[in-house]
């Protein structure tokens, strides 16, 4: 399937392994990525906090660019925060024809216009709803047998439920669980799996921010997870990049590897850990990977 692909900023900045692993995984799932390289940052909620109309217009521009991609079935992102920020803007744009017209007036100088009803899905949603778990399972060549994986959803992709289209028919807040299972892994539930990683306040209240990250990592450790997996690169920053600092705040050693969703999928689809950029993490996933054979498994 062909998708208009929005990689986000962080996946091309501080977590380059995310964008890289997505590019490697896509062909294995027959996804053709048409990168929206003209689109700008979603604002991550911060621009909306500054000026709602500004965020709505910037994202409407991205949506309009996505709608111009020929034969694309939908727009796909690989960042929960992008999903949340874009869904918020899209909710307003889709709710009112006159508001949409107002925003489109600003886009008109570029010859762009957003039409109501774009489908924009995070890779996680696309995996379950478009590709399907049975299909995913059939493509697994290296099942994650014995690997105990803790899902870390992040906030923006699970709340608010109504805006994100989460209901009984679309239990999107369970999808990470299902994907881990489909890849042959064991799901480890722990208290923090749908809580906040703390990243949004890292510059405002560093201690509270790192405490959040440290608590969730510690909960996962206590539940005997081998690693976490997240669909959000910002969560990854707080959980992996900042983990050494979080350890200091919560006063315990953590050493919990955190994988990006495409990395976990890629491992099961037979890609090598190095190709997936797993050597770039601050907490190296050594405990879950035998680097010489690329076999994934629980620590001995």
């Amino acid at each position, binding site marked *: 399937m062909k998708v208009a692909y929005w990689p986000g900023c962080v996946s091309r900045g501080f977590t380059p392994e995310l964008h890289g692993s997505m590019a490697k995984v896509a062909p294995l799932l027959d996804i053709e990525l048409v990168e929206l390289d003209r689109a700008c940052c979603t604002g991550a909620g911060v621009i909306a906090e500054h000026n709602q109309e500004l965020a709505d217009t910037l994202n409407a521009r991205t949506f309009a660019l996505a709608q111009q991609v020929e034969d694309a079935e939908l727009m796909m992102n690989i960042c929960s925060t992008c999903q949340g920020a874009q869904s918020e803007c899209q909710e307003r744009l889709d709710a009112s024809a006159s508001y949409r017209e107002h925003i489109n007036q600003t886009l008109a100088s570029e010859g762009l216009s957003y039409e109501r009803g774009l489908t924009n899905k995070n890779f996680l949603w696309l995996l379950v709803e478009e590709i399907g778990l049975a299909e995913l399972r059939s493509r697994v060549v290296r099942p994650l047998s014995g690997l105990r994986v803790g899902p870390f959803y992040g906030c923006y992709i699970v709340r*608010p439920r109504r805006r994100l289209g989460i209901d009984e028919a679309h239990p999107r807040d369970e999808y990470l669980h299902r994907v881990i299972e489909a890849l042959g892994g064991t799901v480890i539930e722990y208290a923090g799996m749908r809580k906040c990683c703390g990243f949004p*306040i890292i*510059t*405002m209240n560093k201690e*509270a921010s790192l405490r959040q990250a440290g608590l969730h990592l510690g909960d996962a450790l206590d539940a005997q997870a081998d690693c976490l997996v997240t669909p959000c690169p910002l969560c990854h920053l707080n959980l992996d990049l900042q983990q050494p600092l979080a350890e200091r705040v919560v006063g315990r050693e953590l050493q919990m590897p955190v994988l990006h969703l495409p990395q976990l999928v890629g491992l099961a689809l037979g890609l090598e850990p190095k190709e997936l950029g797993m050597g770039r*993490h601050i907490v190296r996933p050594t405990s879950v990977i035998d680097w010489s054979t690329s076999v994934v498994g629980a620590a001995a």
Partner: protein
Amino acid sequence: MSVEQFKLRMRRYNPESGDAPYWDEHTVELEPHRSVLEGILQARDRFDGSIGIRCSCRQAICGSCGVRINGEPALACHTHLEAAVRGAREGAIEIEPMGNMPVIKDLIVDMDAVHWTKVRRVTPWLINKQPVPEREYLVDHDSMVDVTQTMACIQCGACVSDCLAMEVDPGFIGPAALAKAYRFVGDPRDDRQFERLNDLAQDPQGIFDCTHCFRCVEACPKDVDPMGQIMRLRRIATSDYQIVDRNNGRRHEAAFTTLVRDYGLNHEAELLPRSYGGNSWFGKFAPAAGKELLSSLPVIVKGLLRGKFNPKTAIFGHKLRKQDLDAVRAIYEKVEGRERRYELNLYVTGSDEDAEAPDAKSETGTPSEPGATNEQVPIASGGAEESAGA
């Protein structure tokens, strides 16, 4: 409708007993459309008179019976048994006291110690503009409609119970109290907007301590959108009153917004030092930024060694092509150049497709038409100019 059996699994705790909390199960018999509260009351009447639950109106107005049902915040009187049993594990509806507040007994928490103390913290009353008019104040209709969303709060504490910032920082003023603060900041009759905002912005546990997790939005049974109100407080404090807080709130917002204008994409390596040191390229040389960079040095070095950041990208950032950057800047110029911010509040306007939704609180019968004209603000944002002129 026939009566069915429902198994309730309640968390019981009496701090005075010295015993640990425990789970207590009772099977009640009620029609499925009855509430969880009725189930609890039946268990108390039939099996154990010592079960502690606070309740009054039984119709989702008084806000007394806030609890956690199957781990989710809810009003016990506003949750049908048939709905609760669908989310139940092993067939038992799990009922716990609210979080973030000390338990007095069983399902009763100490609202006074946490919730009400925080509400009092934000000066929850109107401070009149002087001189007080002889007759009633005349205010702009839209600006009052705007604050009705926060006035819908019934003080049940569900959002406080679920607040993730409060979980790690109990001193955080929190969603309910900050929504209440917006109720007065947004009220054109109030005379202390600046003082209120300055107070909440400077407090390390004020508006910039919110982690933006949406838990309060989800928890609220009345659609108050506490997090949305906190974001509006931030917006008015930073954009209208230009309050520079000591928590890096305004600097972070300004740095983020400016970097996206200048690069089209977020430039993380610039964002952090600017958030601490000030919104310019020189920000990183400010003492506050230096201190932060120093404390993060081990992480930065490790990141560089592992190839996590490309040094070139880290220094120069990644940029959109010129043509696109120009388009982004044109959007900034146009939107930021408006005399007043343009804000669409779906709580007030509803959406085109469900104009009849009960949430659409249009009292006049003439709902505002967002976007009808370019420069009219359909829903007042409670900005400085407006409050001065009201």
